[in-house]
């Protein structure tokens, strides 16, 4: 839209920022249903296998989990600050905050990589012999752990790509102090990813 309309004078540009944000929220609701379905499956299996979930969760490292929670919460802060910065017409600061957000997201993924590597090293991965010899509740727990944190990780990667585009848009003037809806919607997406982790963290790491 922007590339086509930039040639026109400001008064002729048709914009509907509220509509754009509402559209983003509607998309976020589909994400809510996607993850909500998984949380439903989790809650039922935890209800039917409470002891086995309890035992399986002991394998997870609470310190890495807490650390990643802090990283993701901080990345949400830097994302929100980048929007304040662009509103104040401070382009460089906005780009810097977006860069910090990407950096924190990558840090999160590196931790996730080491966490999963250690699990794999211990023979705990979907379909492994070690895991298949455990009780069914433990197999379910790790199945859900890999699918839910895996899908969340995928969202983090998508978020990084989107913020990278926003850094470019901010530097070349597509995102400006009076037209930052793209950055705003990217922020909405990023905060949703944060909210999902806010629920994943206690459900997987804190049930021991």
């Amino acid at each position, binding site marked *: 839209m922007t590339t086509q309309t930039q040639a026109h004078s400001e008064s002729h540009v*048709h*914009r*509907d*920022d*509220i*509509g754009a*944000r*509402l559209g983003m*929220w*509607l998309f976020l*609701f589909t994400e*809510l*249903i996607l993850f*909500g379905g998984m949380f*439903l499956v989790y*809650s*039922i299996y935890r*209800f*039917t296998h409470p002891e086995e979930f309890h035992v399986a969760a002991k394998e997870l490292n*609470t310190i890495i989990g*807490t650390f990643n*929670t*802090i990283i993701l*919460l*901080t990345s*949400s*802060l830097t*994302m*929100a*600050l980048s*929007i*304040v910065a662009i*509103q*104040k017409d401070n382009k460089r600061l906005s780009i810097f905050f977006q860069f910090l957000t990407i950096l924190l997201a990558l840090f999160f993924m590196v931790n996730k990589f080491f966490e999963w590597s250690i699990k794999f090293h211990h023979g705990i991965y979907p379909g492994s012999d070690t895991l298949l010899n455990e009780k069914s509740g433990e197999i379910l727990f790790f199945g859900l752990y890999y699918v839910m944190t895996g899908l969340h990780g995928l969202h983090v990667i998508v978020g990084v790509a989107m913020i990278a585009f926003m850094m470019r848009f901010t530097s070349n003037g597509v995102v400006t102090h009076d037209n*930052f*809806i793209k950055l*705003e919607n990217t*922020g*909405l997406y990023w*905060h*949703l990813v*944060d*909210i999902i982790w*806010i*629920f994943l*963290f*206690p*459900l997987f790491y*804190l*049930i*021991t």
Partner: protein
Amino acid sequence: MKENNVQHEHSPSYGIYILVWLGLLALTGLTVAVAGLDIGRFTVATAMIIASAKAFLVLTIFMHLKSESKTFTVFVIVALFFLAISFILLFADYSFK
């Protein structure tokens, strides 16, 4: 259509976001600390209440629901309402099996 271009009516400030971030960190500390206590079946409920409080902060401040028009809040409440129905019906079924 002109008023739809107004993104946020009040002047933005960094302070509120840093304050909310500190609140989120405090709640994270709280949930980790409470998980260490042995409070039996209240463990899950406590963890979920704290997580909901954190999600509320992110939704209202970071995601700007507080400064949006009421339409947005109604949308979010309706979406959460249907998710809640799914949970209630599922557990209504499983609890009496």
